């Protein structure tokens, strides 16, 4: 072990971490394949570093003490009874011929058992692939990192039981939906859903991860997704959190962008009581392009914390981060974004735009765009503003006879437009709009204007 400064004083182990370790020790880890070794390293690393606390930079606003003060058991691999197909479960319209892959607490429910093939996307269970090709799985787990935003992903890496491996092999026009269902039989359950999306050079696809729940109990959802975009590939990826106020999510997304690849990523937090998302993008080949959109809706007492880090490590790479945060009630929304331009990444072009809108005096929005530049000839801009509805705009609309509720709703909707208009799946956009609007004040009024 190298002597990293923080390694000197190992933090006391939280009850949650002790339980994770016990779970790990109970597993059969005698194999010596690359995957088992990697998982073991992940466990050891998180044992050494501890779970993040508010003393860690990217967790400053999100206290997980209530979660780490007790142990967890794994949530069941199947849902009790049949999955109820409610409106909230149909994010994509039938007219768009989308296929849906169901994951219950991270366990894929694949038609015909093991493999499925869908219009240019090969779908394999991670458990199966781990047996047949552990080296491939290991290669697609995120590189182990000590960074505090990646700490829960290490737990996922060590402890995930199953997951999905999607290999995009063609130009797939219809979206694929991964429906993540959280369900539990009691308190203190945890799920570690794991998804790997591997897009071969020149391929394209749209993949929507949609988090919902079933039943009265729900586990802590510690999900992790890794996307590897091959050269010249084009991916549109959504993660939509649409669970109820009692749900808690920690989601880690890592993106690796190959030469001239494009990833359009949407992070949509419109559900859950606590949603913590991280996005780490590595633009490691020339011409890679990331468009990251975040739509963070704080509602009632919800806590939403989103951290995005884009690292430019090759020439002529481009990143756009567009975040819109709305907070009403007593909610709190945190958005931290960072762009890192490594030496040699000349002609990097990056923009960070974050706007927050406070709809109540008891809500709070914290934003912090950051830049770390270690290269010359780069173009990087960032901006962050947070405020209330513009009184001049409001007065203008009132002076035309609109009632206050309508005027306010139209302004809120307009505020979100920059993110919504970027979505290229019309039915997903429309479903997300529906869900968003339902949480805004005066939603009935607003619906008339769509």
């Amino acid at each position, binding site marked *: 072990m190298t002597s990293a400064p923080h390694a000197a004083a190992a933090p006391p182990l939280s009850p949650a971490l002790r339980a994770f370790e016990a779970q790990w020790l109970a597993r059969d880890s005698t194999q010596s394949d690359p995957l088992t070794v990697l998982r073991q390293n992940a466990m050891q690393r998180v044992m050494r570093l501890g779970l993040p606390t508010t003393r860690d930079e990217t967790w400053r606003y999100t206290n997980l003490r209530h979660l780490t003060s007790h142990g967890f058991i794994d949530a069941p691999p199947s849902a009790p009874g049949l999955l109820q197909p409610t409106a909230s479960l149909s994010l994509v319209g039938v007219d768009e011929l989308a296929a849906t892959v169901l994951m219950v607490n991270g366990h894929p429910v694949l038609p015909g058992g093991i493999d499925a093939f869908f219009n240019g996307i090969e779908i394999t269970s991670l458990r199966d692939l781990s047996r047949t090709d552990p080296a491939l799985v290991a290669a697609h787990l995120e590189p182990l990192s000590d960074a505090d935003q990646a700490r829960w992903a290490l737990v996922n890496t060590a402890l995930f039981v199953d997951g999905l491996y999607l290999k995009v092999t063609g130009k797939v026009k219809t979206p694929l939906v991964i429906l993540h269902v959280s369900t539990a039989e009691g308190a203190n359950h945890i799920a570690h859903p794991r998804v790997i999306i591997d897009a071969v050079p020149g391929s394209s696809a749209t993949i929507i991860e949609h988090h919902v729940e079933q039943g009265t109990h729900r586990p802590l959802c510690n999900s992790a997704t890794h996307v590897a975009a091959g050269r010249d590939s084009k991916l549109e990826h959504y993660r939509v959190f649409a669970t109820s106020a009692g749900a808690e999510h920690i989601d880690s997304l890592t993106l690796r962008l190959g030469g001239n690849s494009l990833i359009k990523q949407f992070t949509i937090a419109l559900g859950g009581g606590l949603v913590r998302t991280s996005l780490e993008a590595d633009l490691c080949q020339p011409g890679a392009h990331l468009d990251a959109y975040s739509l963070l809706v704080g509602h009632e007492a919800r806590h939403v914390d989103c951290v995005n880090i884009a690292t430019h490590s090759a020439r002529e790479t481009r990143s756009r981060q567009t975040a819109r945060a709305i907070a009403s009630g007593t909610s709190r929304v945190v958005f931290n974004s960072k762009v890192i331009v490594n030496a040699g990444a000349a002609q990097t072009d990056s923009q960070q735009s974050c706007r927050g809108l406070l709809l109540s005096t008891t809500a709070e929005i914290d934003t912090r765009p950051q830049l770390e530049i270690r290269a010359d000839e780069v173009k990087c801009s960032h901006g962050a503003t947070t405020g209330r509805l513009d009184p001049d705009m409001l007065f*203008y*609309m*009132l002076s035309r*006879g*609109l009632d206050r509720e*309508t005027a306010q709703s139209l302004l809120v909707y307009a*505020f979100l437009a*920059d993110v919504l208009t970027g979505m290229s799946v019309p039915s997903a956009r429309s479903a997300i709009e529906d869900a968003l609007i339902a949480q805004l004040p005066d939603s009935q009024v607003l619906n008339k*204007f769509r």
Partner: protein
Amino acid sequence: MDKGTSLLKITDLSVRVAGKDILKGVNLEVRRGEIHAIMGPNGSGKSTLAQVLAGRADYEVTGGSVTFEGQDLLALPAEERARAGLFLGFQYPVEIPGVNNVYLLKAALNAKRKAAGQPEVDAYEFLALIKQKMKLMQMSESFLSRGVNEGFSGGEKKRNEVLQMLVLEPKLAILDETDSGLDIDALKIVSMGVNSLRDPNRAVVLVTHYQRLLGYIVPDHVHVLSGGRILKSGDRSLALELERRGYDWVQQESKVA
């Protein structure tokens, strides 16, 4: 039918903005069928008067009264004043990206119709109406798909104000420096729009800095507002005199009086 009856009556109106007294006892009566011009030097309170009549909430009325068709105007929130038939053409129309021009206009028209007990406007009829008015104002069709005033030039914004006025057909239109920043062609278009609304049942109050507009829209009454008071009223010849002699003599005259 009501020609000549009182539409707006302002009595001794005093207004404070950000702790500063701006209007200090304004008196003005506007009857149906009339066009009034309110002129005056910069900072005289012209825009404050226009905004306070439209219902701007952060302007504090410290004295006096305003009635509109006999009703206490100051007791109504801005949106109800609009529905009752009062329209303000803004000096600086705000840009509202993401809110479509047509949405706003349709919502405005429907709010007014609803208040009058009428059904919502039919979508096709509305589009036909708006296209007809746009033609009059020589506005391009691209306007239909744009956000409210989004990316408009100064002249386009003013034309949009007049377009909204034509669609909403107010009883009283207060146009706050709608002529400023317009070239001669745009000034003619805007004037034509205002004149097309001229009607024995309606009235217009033009707030302006220059006499130029009054060559195209001929007022019945001209008032000089200075230092928060109306110092002098007259007919159109007063505007010409102001053009020739400036405002100083009016201020001198009122001091002597």
